[in-house]
């Protein structure tokens, strides 16, 4: 298992380098001077600094190398310095955003908590709903509950978040006035009322995201349960007189959870990607919205870094899913 994990880790490195190269080349192939979009108000010395940070004027391979070094070495050093108060990274050039001239990672660090709160809650809510729904609709296949569940998941698949988001805003924020339509990120939770307000403003974005995730997960859970319910060991368990509850909830459920757990792990980075739209609809200023504003402002270093962070998340969770699968299912042992 350890060798397998190690081997996967090693394979992750060329994957990440390839993705970094794709992102870099994409921005490289883009016609025009990347500095042409920097406003004239930017003083020349800052411009020079930005040029140096980007390594502009040097050949592409060297610029690529510099970016990689900044991303994988200088920025982690900065995080280390920040955590332990050391000074390893002093004087080293960081990735500078063109938009607000601050290091990209500082801006991202400011935005990440909002995204994590909304996306994380949505994911947990979705898992909590999807698993029981999946279990029950598989157990009572073709029942009314199952049919209704299938229809709702189909809708969850088909209604894109930019429509379901707008729809719930119209219903719950404009007509009923139960929840605010815009997420107030300056809100500080310091007492009970503030906490309730936080819950209320999180409700709509979480609902939209959770609907999407629930429909995928419950579909998967149902299929996985159905696969297992027909197995011989289930008949054996029933034949030896186990209660139905322990047959389904212990024998079948544990085995059905194996693929579902990996799907849950695989889905996390996708949710970050999908949250771009939900964040835009509800004006949550998380990293998704940061990406959109950076794209609109032609802030290439920010776009490059954020896209790459999304890629790192995907590769990381692929790795986690693979390892989880090996741990959970003894039949699958990669030697």
């Amino acid at each position, binding site marked *: 298992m350890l060798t397998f994990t190690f081997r996967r880790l090693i394979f992750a490195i060329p*994957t990440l380098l*390839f*993705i970094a190269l*794709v*992102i870099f080349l*994409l*921005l490289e*192939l*883009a*016609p*025009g001077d990347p500095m042409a979009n920097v406003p004239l108000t930017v003083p020349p010395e800052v411009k020079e600094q930005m040029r140096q940070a980007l390594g502009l004027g040097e050949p592409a391979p060297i610029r690529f190398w510099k970016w990689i070094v900044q991303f994988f070495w200088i920025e982690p050093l900065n995080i280390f310095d920040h955590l332990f108060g050391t000074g390893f990274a002093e004087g080293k050039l960081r990735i500078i955003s063109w938009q607000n001239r601050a290091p990209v990672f500082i801006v991202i660090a400011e935005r990440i908590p909002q995204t994590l709160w909304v996306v994380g809650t949505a994911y947990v809510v979705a898992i909590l709903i999807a698993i029981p729904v999946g279990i029950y609709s598989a157990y009572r296949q073709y029942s009314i509950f199952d049919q209704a569940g299938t229809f709702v998941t*189909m*809708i969850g*698949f*088909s*209604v*894109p978040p*930019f*429509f379901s988001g*707008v*729809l719930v*805003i*119209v219903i719950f924020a*404009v007509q009923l006035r139960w929840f605010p339509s815009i997420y107030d990120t300056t809100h500080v939770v310091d007492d009970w009322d503030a906490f309730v307000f936080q819950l209320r403003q999180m409700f709509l974005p979480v609902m939209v995201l959770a609907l999407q995730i629930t429909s995928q997960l419950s579909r998967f859970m149902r299929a996985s349960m159905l696969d297992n319910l027909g197995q011989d060991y289930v008949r054996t368990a029933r034949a030896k007189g186990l209660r139905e509850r322990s047959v389904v909830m212990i024998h079948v459920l544990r085995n059905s959870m194996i693929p579902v757990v990996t799907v849950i792990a695989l889905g996390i*980075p996708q949710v970050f*990607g*999908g949250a*771009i*739209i939900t964040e*835009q609809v509800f004006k949550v200023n998380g990293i998704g919205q940061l*990406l*959109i504003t950076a*794209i*609109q402002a*032609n802030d290439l270093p920010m*776009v490059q870094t*954020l*896209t790459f962070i*999304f*890629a790192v*998340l*995907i*590769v990381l969770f*692929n790795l986690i899913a693979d390892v989880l699968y090996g741990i959970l299912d003894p039949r699958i042992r990669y030697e």
Partner: protein
Amino acid sequence: MSDARDPRSPIGAEDEGVVAASAAVMGAEPVLLSTGARSQWLDVWDQFKTHKGALIGAAIFLAIVAVVALGPLVWDPELGIKSNIRARNEGMSLAHPFGTDQLGRDIFARMMAGGRVSLAVGLTAMFLSVVIGTLIGVLAGYFRALDGALMRFTDLFLALPLLPLLLVMVLLFREPLTAVFGVETGIFLLIVSAIGITSWMQTARIVRGEVLALKEREFVLAARSIGTPSRRVITRHVLPNVLSPIMVSATLGIATAIITESALSFLGLGFPPDFPTWGRLLNDGVPYLEQYPERVFWPGIAISLVVLSINYVGDGLRDALDPRIRGR
């Protein structure tokens, strides 16, 4: 493409010929051949008919396509372009079934124009992604030497963050392409190719799996043993037999492509303002959400209905084309 060995095989439509050929090749069961008149597509259609959701989905999808494609013959498309300040922000009426927008343009006409673009983008992007996916899948499945490299390549593509990359691609290549091809064609080409080259991976994986299994079958061996070159084996024996998974993923691909295009337009990075697509219309309606929520509903419902019906059709097709579920 009709098959000379089977005199009863229908000659005419291209794909019918392909299937007849494959049925004849697979026809180790002479019983099936002697019934003659029954083509495989009739079986598929019979099975498809039993899936009620798929049937309704197909009807709704065709109805929407018909309205969008034939609508301009009945309904003046100029109404959706010319602004008429005196008739702005009107509600639903006979003159304007969906009302008018803030410039007095007829929303029904705009919806039809937007639908044409959205559906065209969906179909073309799907076609592109299916072609790339099938090509890579068949090559990887059939030629063992290419398998490792191509599948690693697919894995790498699967690890790309697609939506951010799409946004970046649109941002970077919008201006040069519009300069060369003009605004409409340029952005259409950009969006179609961007969606196409970021969505072929699933098709490639499915096709590869099918081809790997098919390659070991006797009829492929027979074809190879009489000296058929690989190119002919693929086009004549392998491709017709992987048609069903390709069709299913093509159907679902339309839905994904339409959603992706709408998402891009919604984020303001798709088609330019004043160039209606469903996503763009939805985006334009958001500022008027409080006063005129219906302006957001029409495009939203159109997108959701199309995608929902396509998903049901895909579901029904999968059931109908999979012989293991076929019948009872």
